[in-house]
């Protein structure tokens, strides 16, 4: 049956800009689909995505859950006889998805090039500068307040009640809302018209069961990374260290907030309790230990993933701004975090507060722009994996 192909030339150009620049080198030999250790036998990827990309078949590519099945190990690109970099193309399609499915696509655009970095960094820099000035004049009484005994307490300047939690709770609500809309858009794009035809094992499972299975079997264990091959072990360990580093730090932050607000709310009704997680925590506090474990895991993961990315053969796989932006922001969070602690302990207020200010900027950049950055895969890949399980692919 003859089929009329209507290539979307603009789409091909956009795809090349976000990391798929080698897509036209592909000659459809299908080595990639076989080389991929996790590609399924029916309609395997990424060969079909390569030809869709060359033909500019925008709708087929954007409505394709397979781009989220790929965990970007790069084996396909290593064996590609043409240097067409199929792995990079799937990453580019995901980058494009972050721009497409989220509201406020302009933030997604700011992720594409270093020239927008001043905007992304400028927003939190300005916000926290204003808060710093307000606090110095009306709360702390000094731009570099020093507590009794010459101790530095960041809460004296950036008091949790006024400055930290309101900002991040607001951000969390906004980010959650963006993710809600984004996931809805993503699933809508993956869904064929009409009813979803469920095939294969898992056809009787509900959404929630599929989600739990994904988290249990894939996210927590990094099973897909394992399947990507033993030669990519550094990538699995690096990603896992980063993932569990963030989990540790999320628990630490959660306990800090829980302790603070419990004490605060009970205080309002006249019950006075001790907050075991009052900051700065001492080194005897188990929550501090967890924070240190988290920081070490984060740095370990960063080193492994950065070294790996630097050692990639540019003929086989290229790193683009998206990749470096995310790694850079996580590096900034980790390094400023560790330095904030060290400078606080060293007691140099004029260095410690600026470092903490930089840390706040970095953390803001990581969380506020989460859905539009590569880290959005945290939610979107999970959603797509849940969907394909639900479908039975």
């Amino acid at each position: 049956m003859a089929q009329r192909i209507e290539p979307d030339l603009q789409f091909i150009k956009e795809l090349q800009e976000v990391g798929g620049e080698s897509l036209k080198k592909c000659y459809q030999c299908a080595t990639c689909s076989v080389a991929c250790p996790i590609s399924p036998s029916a309609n395997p990827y990424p060969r079909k995505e390569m030809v869709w990309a060359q033909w500019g078949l925008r709708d087929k590519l954007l409505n394709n859950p397979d781009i989220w099945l790929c965990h970007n190990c790069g084996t396909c690109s290593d064996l590609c006889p043409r240097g067409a970099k199929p792995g990079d193309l799937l990453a580019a399609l995901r980058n494009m998805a972050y721009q497409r499915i989220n509201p406020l696509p302009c933030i997604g655009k700011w992720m594409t090039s270093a020239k927008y970095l001043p905007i992304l960094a400028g927003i939190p820099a300005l916000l926290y500068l204003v808060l710093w000035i307000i606090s110095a004049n009306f709360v702390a009484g000094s731009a570099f307040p020093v507590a009794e005994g010459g101790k530095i307490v960041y809460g004296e300047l950036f008091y949790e009640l006024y400055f930290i939690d309101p900002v991040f709770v607001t951000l969390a609500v906004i980010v959650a809302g963006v993710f809600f809309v984004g996931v809805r858009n993503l699933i809508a794009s993956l869904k064929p018209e009409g009813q979803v035809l469920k095939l294969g094992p898992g056809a009787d499972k509900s959404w929630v069961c599929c989600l739990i299975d994904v988290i249990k079997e894939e996210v927590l264990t990094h099973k897909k990374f394992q399947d990507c091959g033993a030669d990519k072990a550094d990538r699995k360990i690096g990603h896992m260290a980063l993932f569990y580093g963030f989990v540790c730090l999320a628990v630490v932050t959660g306990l800090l907030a829980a302790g603070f607000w419990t004490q605060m709310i009970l205080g309002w009704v006249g019950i006075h309790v001790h907050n075991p997680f009052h900051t700065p925590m001492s080194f005897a506090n188990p929550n501090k230990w967890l924070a240190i474990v988290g920081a070490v895991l984060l740095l370990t993961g960063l080193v492994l993933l950065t070294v790996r990315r630097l050692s990639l053969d540019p003929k086989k796989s290229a790193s683009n701004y998206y990749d470096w932006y995310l790694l850079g922001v996580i590096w900034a969070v980790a390094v400023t975090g560790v330095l904030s602690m060290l400078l606080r302990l060293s007691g140099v207020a004029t260095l410690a507060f600026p470092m903490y200010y930089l840390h706040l900027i970095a953390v803001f950049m990581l969380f506020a722009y989460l859905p539009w950055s590569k880290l959005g895969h945290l939610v979107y890949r999970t959603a797509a994996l849940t969907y394909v399980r639900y479908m039975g692919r």
Partner: protein
Amino acid sequence: MSNSILVVGGGFSGITAALEAAEVGYEVFIVEKGPYLGGRVAQLNKYFPKLCPPSCGLEIQFQRIKKNPNVKFFTLAEVTSVSGSAGNYTVKVKIKPRYVGPAGADLHELAQELSADVPNPFEFGLSNRKALYMDVPFAFPYRYVLDRDKLTRDDENLLAKSIYLDLNDTEREIELTVGSIVLATGWKPYDVTNLSNLGAGSVADCISNMQMERLAAASGPTGGQIVRPSDGKAPKSVAFVQCAGSRDQNHLNYCSYICCMASLKQARYVREQYPDAKVTIFYIDLRTPERYQKFAQVTLADDGITAVKGKVAAVEQGAGQVLVTVEDAVRGAKYQQGFDLVVLATGMQPSLAGEKTPFGAMVDEDGFVIAGAEQGIFAAGCAKKPLDVMKSAQSATGAALKAIQTVRGR
């Protein structure tokens, strides 16, 4: 100034270039590294375009050489140095001893008396030979050759008694003065041990296409029976893996031109020998240019031969079979299938790739010769690019004409 022409390589291209120049009156020297002329063609079962056995085309060429006093050839010979410039080159040639006199005696029975069996590179490891040997029955010069290093003490004593051998033969060096040089150094099959995902040569019943030629050749190790190297059994299913190393930036970054036709031809060998056998050819594109298109059509009309679009990306040893993994790109299905015999359609690598040559840095990154009128050095045949026999001959004729223009002046 010299009017003579040096041809390096005595395969089909070298012989053709030499004869074309000699038959219009120029003195030509052929320097061949091996013990016989005929090169890769002599290893084939049949060759294009007419599917003749190699003895057919080569015999005519050998006759022309014998009858033409203008052609002088040296076997077991290698160029060691080249000096001078276009029109006036001094070439030093080292000639290894053959140890066998020019009587043309049939030493088959004597060779069989030797005790040691040594690996036979002419058969690509499919069989062994004696140290006193002749590659094929139609070899030219029709003269045995001795691999002296591979003799045992007893063998040496045995051969010392023969009047047809001279164990004291020594290496010689000669000097030639020529006006122009034709490089017809040919090609070598791409080394399968580099193809790590295709078994890297460690799967017994996964052979190369040149091994298939030897299996199918009447002069080959099995007398022309296509059988599995592992157990000598007739294969019921055969897979051809196209582009095994060719069109691949990790291996040979170019199309080797002839492998598609070679596999179609070999599919016919299999089907002619085993009417019940099934053949599958896994390809990226079937490249059958010009009149070869018809050959492909006729071959693929056979119900026993299937062509699947999709490059095999994994070859492994299975239980009694060889497993290939492929995505059929037309159906979009990835699957693994077992075959009794798998043939890797390995490509052509120029013989000069990775070699130090006395001709200066005149090869490109792939090892193909880049030369021209300025140096009076011309490439012929597969030293220049991958070609079939017919196009090699055309290329050799062109190179001969250019060489003549160099020594005569236009």
